[in-house]
């Protein structure tokens, strides 16, 4: 959990707003450190479900992570320690057709919700590490958007929990060659569904050793009386071994 990011987002682990759909996206860079932030952030108070991408990035600090292997037929399931935290892996079956696994997942997901009524847990959180892996496995953009919609309906509206998803994209924003059409469409579709967007990209002036890139944070709030409004802020960041620091553009410690 990055304390600077918490203060930027006005969030703290003690008071978690519910019903949030957070989209983390990146363009030609790696936004997985933000997934780490949200993972540790929500581990402090919520029941946590993580899904999908099998990554080897462990978490410093002794927290364990549930990873689910999408294609192989093995189900790897690890319980995290601690009385207040519980993680579940989504079991999956080996898929033959591309559309099947997402529907199967949505169904299993709902079944899983009904199973634990006995204990007192906080609101559930769904973290999806990488939606673009689904695209590279051949799933259509429409199916992935449907899946994200079902997740949002189930977790945010029905269960009053939070969802955070990572989507990655490769091409330049201005080009429209049709090369990366799938992930661009996915990104656009998800941006309209979410309440908070964190978009990570490289610096427009090129590579810098002390500033690894910039994050654009965009809040889309829907207030009943005022209608929708969006607020955008731009920060630059640098990732260290055990954390990341965020600062306003031009105020990096290397410059000041």
């Amino acid at each position, binding site marked *: 959990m990055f304390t600077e990011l918490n203060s930027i987002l006005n969030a703290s682990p003690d008071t978690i707003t519910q019903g949030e759909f957070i989209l983390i996206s990146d363009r030609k860079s*790696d936004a997985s450190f933000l997934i780490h932030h949200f993972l540790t952030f929500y581990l402090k108070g919520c029941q946590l479900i993580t899904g999908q991408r099998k990554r080897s990035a462990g978490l410093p600090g002794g927290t364990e992570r549930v990873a689910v292997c999408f294609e192989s037929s093995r189900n790897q399931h690890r319980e995290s320690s601690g009385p207040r935290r519980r993680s579940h892996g989504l079991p999956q079956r080996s898929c033959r057709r591309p559309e099947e696994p997402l529907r199967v997942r949505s169904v299993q997901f709902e079944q899983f919700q009904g199973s634990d009524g006995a204990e007192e847990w906080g609101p559930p959180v769904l973290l999806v590490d990488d939606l673009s892996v689904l695209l590279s496995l051949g799933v259509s953009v429409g199916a992935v958007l449907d899946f994200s919609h079902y997740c949002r309906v189930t977790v945010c509206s029905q269960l009053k929990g939070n969802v955070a998803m990572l989507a990655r994209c490769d091409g330049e924003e201005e080009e429209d060659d049709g090369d990366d059409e799938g992930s661009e469409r996915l990104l656009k579709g998800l941006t309209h569904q979410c309440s908070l967007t964190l978009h990570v990209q490289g610096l427009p002036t*090129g590579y810098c050793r002390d500033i690894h890139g910039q994050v654009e944070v965009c809040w889309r709030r829907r207030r009943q009386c005022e209608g929708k409004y969006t607020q955008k802020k731009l920060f630059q960041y640098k990732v260290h071994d055990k954390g990341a620091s965020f600062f306003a553009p031009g105020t990096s410690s290397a410059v000041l």
Partner: protein
Amino acid sequence: MAAPMSGVGKPSVTSFQKKTRSKLISIAGTRPSVQNGQLLVSTGVTSLDYLLGGGLAVGTVLLIEEDRYDSYSRMILKYFLAEGVVCRHELFVAAAQDNPDDILQELPAPILDDIAIHKPAEQPRLSSEPQESLDAMKIAWRYQNLPKVQSALASSCRFGHYYDVSKTMEPEIRQAAKFHRFYVPEHPTQSSPTHSTMPESYSALLKSLQEVIHREGFDLAAPMSNSRNILRIGLHSLGSALWGDDLCCHDNPKNGHSLTTFLYGLRALLRSSLSVAVVTVPSHLIQDRALMGSITRLCDNAIALESFKGSERETNPLYKDYHGLLYVRQIPHLNCLASKLPDHKDLAFKLKRKQFTIERLHLPPDLSETVSRVSRGELSGAAAVASACGSVTSGNKHLDF
């Protein structure tokens, strides 16, 4: 991963857990990384080991984007397999173009000054040494009766060896290694009516890999015995047309996701076993850059080679010391948040007889008054991309000096 941390969940008096409490298995030819404690193996090329952060982590994939004529990427694959033979790891080679046996015949010979390789013929030869060297050792005559120094511990604590490319590995050394093979023409593909997402060759390869891993006990789930070994997997030229994949043939391939699905399955296999894989892909034939991006993201380490052979740069005097350029596309961040990409983006390689060196491209001094130096930006290639944690700068339009 290869070295599971067993700290969490055990009741302990203090919450402080020493990092060394995890059960690290010691396998010949591996060493734990100084940065993050992962088990590393050498790729066979010491400068590449340095670029990758000390070596290749067990359970990861190294993607090599081939150069145009597949000469240097093939060389790196052979170095990788030769290193496996020297460290006594098991090998698995899969190829569509050449027979894996032929690839094994061409492995470079290791330079064995101080490495003990078990040869049964060694002992009787030592006794005959002093007679032969009576004439030779006139000066150091006190040492002529001592046996030749062979440090028997060298093979276990030496990480990374050097190879002589002009000679091939001797058959005795090569046959000591256990070797599994997969040659595509030997697995005839039935034109299947089933709508599988991968061509038959990829699924057959995955099945064969899974079977070898399970049978030979590389699974992490298998009971921990004292003698574990590493399986080195070399996959040559995946994605080429000989594998039955039309990724390189068409702009909009029919099975555009076959290679990515295969890589996903391969990574799943690797993460749960003690193996390392090196995959070469002819990326210069793949037109779709986004597809190449997703292939890169599905592999952990990725480098790209660009050789000067056949291009105008071969005769360019600025490049006369080198054979090609090397780009590091991706380094994984294992157990930490930041990946350690090399600071210098302008790396070039040179294949010498005893070493494959990768170094920073240095322009020779401009001694002539009339020659105008080609600018640095043109040298490094036009296809430069701005990214967050490292690539060649392309944002010249934003900088106005």
